[in-house]
């Protein structure tokens, strides 16, 4: 009797498997933005040449480059589970850099990074560049190189579009504010503005909690929040002035000779010829977020 039942279960499972393969989820068309090919594509320099001994010369000779970006932040750096390439402002900046090295977008190897693992990636040469909402700080510059900034943002608040009660950090007292457990942002709103902290593992989960009304606000860098607001402008909005300053830089290995100058030159060029703006319009700008002022680059060390 028992064996019989198991058999039936096995048959049912097999039947379920044969049914599999008829679905077509996520492949309907390219409008979900993970196609990549029809997205942002800066002009690739045909015969890029660099001085011998520089890291750029090596990369250009290899014809491929490894770039660390985030995979889980829409607008900034996001890759859907089944697509091959990430999209967002950071990957677009990566494409600009690669193009200047004579490398087309399909020769870029994208590596996922999260907030706290970026230095080792650069130190171990796991990646050539880190472009992953990577704030420039003195501590980080002790161990890795950071050129830029290519984008200046700051801690802000994401709230429900119909919420008028929160207009800045001073309105947070007693409100439930979500961010990643253990992050600086969540500490700031709790200690300085008296919010009740609600910790989750990723910003996406915080945003989901906000959408269901379980928390009153989500806080982290404005650029990241802008990405979520851009995804769902009817339900979400970013409010208030930034109450901290985060300057996103491009990380590289400190030992890579000439790298900072190359990045700064590339950024300057991109600011001027409109590629930086195009990179923004193709990602964060899609949600109607205004193009920020062109940042002033730090001089190379």
């Amino acid at each position, binding site marked *: 009797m028992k064996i019989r039942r198991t058999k039936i279960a096995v048959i049912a499972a097999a039947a379920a498997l044969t049914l*599999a*393969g008829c*679905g077509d*989820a996520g492949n309907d068309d390219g409008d979900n933005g993970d196609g990549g090919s029809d997205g942002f594509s800066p002009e690739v320099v045909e015969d890029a040449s660099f001085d011998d001994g520089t890291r750029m010369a090596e990369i250009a000779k290899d014809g491929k480059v490894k770039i660390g970006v985030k995979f*889980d932040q829409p607008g900034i750096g996001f890759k859907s*589970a089944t697509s091959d390439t990430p999209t967002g402002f950071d990957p677009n900046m990566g494409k600009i850099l690669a193009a200047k090295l004579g490398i087309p977008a399909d020769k870029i190897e994208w590596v*996922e990074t999260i907030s706290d693992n970026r230095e080792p990636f650069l130190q171990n040469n796991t990646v050539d560049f880190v472009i992953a909402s990577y704030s420039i700080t003195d501590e980080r510059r002790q161990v890795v190189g950071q050129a830029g900034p290519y984008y200046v943002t700051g801690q802000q608040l994401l709230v429900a579009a119909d919420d008028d009660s929160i207009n800045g950090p001073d309105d947070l007292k007693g409100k439930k504010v979500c961010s990643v457990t253990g992050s600086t942002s969540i500490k700031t709103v709790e200690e300085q503005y008296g919010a009740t902290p609600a910790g989750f593992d*990723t910003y996406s989960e915080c945003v*989901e909690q906000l959408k269901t009304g379980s928390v009153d606000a989500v806080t982290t860098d404005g650029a990241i929040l802008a990405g979520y607001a851009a995804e769902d402008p009817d339900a979400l909005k970013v409010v208030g002035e930034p109450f901290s300053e985060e300057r996103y830089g491009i990380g590289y290995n400190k030992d890579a000779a000439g790298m900072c100058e190359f990045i700064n030159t590339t950024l300057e060029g991109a600011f001027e010829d409109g590629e930086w703006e195009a990179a923004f319009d193709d990602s964060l700008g899609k949600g109607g977020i205004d193009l920020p002022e062109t940042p002033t680059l730090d001089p190379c060390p």
Partner: protein
Amino acid sequence: MSQSTVLYDTPGPRARRTYRIIGVVAVLALLVLGFVVINILYENGQLEYEGVWEPFVTPAYLELLWGGLLDTLKAAALAILGALAFGVLFGIGKLSEHRLIRWPCWLVVEFFRAVPLLILIIFIWSLYSLQLDRSFHALVIGLVLYNGSVLAEVFRAGINAVPKGQAEAAYALGMRKYQVMTAILMPQAVKIMLPSIISQCIVALKDTSLGYVILAPGLTKVGREIWREFGNYLATALVLLVIYLVINLILDLIGRWVERRYTGGRRLDVGAPGALGEQDAVAQVEAARKAATKGGAGTGAGGFQ
């Protein structure tokens, strides 16, 4: 099927009729409950194919789930292998005649059994500077330390469960301590311990889900990716639940088979003295589990002795 327990007498004709009525009412109640649940699901669009269940019949996402499942199984397998080594080492350490060995082993085992697995994993991950590509290591190491400590207790109990005369006889034959352990005690203890080891596999497998918190590869991470794309939270979570359930139930079956095969069901005497008949699957595993880990509940068998 008539039966008698301490709770009630063997039912007479009237009682049996009452039971039947209660039974019918219960079936009706279950049907109503099922209908209500399905209705709620339907009204909230959770039974729709497109965008809700479609990903789970789409090859790309099935591959994704399969990959996640392999990662999860890998984590569980590595954890159990490591835990076995850890368990043997510290289990024997706890049996040592030397205080300097016994006490530290006792301390380590008790500590890791009493500490929440999650904070252990987070701590280990923080030692890795929270690097994403290390989260899998952190998960496995945490699982090894925790399950290893539980298995150390299982080992100790298993060795102690071998009749004393066995060791005494071996010593009388002139065997050394090492020989007694490996040739006499261990082979017999392993048989007794097998069911407990398998139920610990279930615990380890369930706990691989904690990888979610540190973004480690595995089923829960894949689940996050899928619902991030489709917003089909409930469907995805239910699919994850079913996958875990199916694997655990398979392990459960294997455990029961091993128990019958190697221990002749001896363990069954401990917790379920035939009260509800042999069909009662969970009771059997519970009995074995309880005997070895003193009541291992999910993420932890607690430090209760």
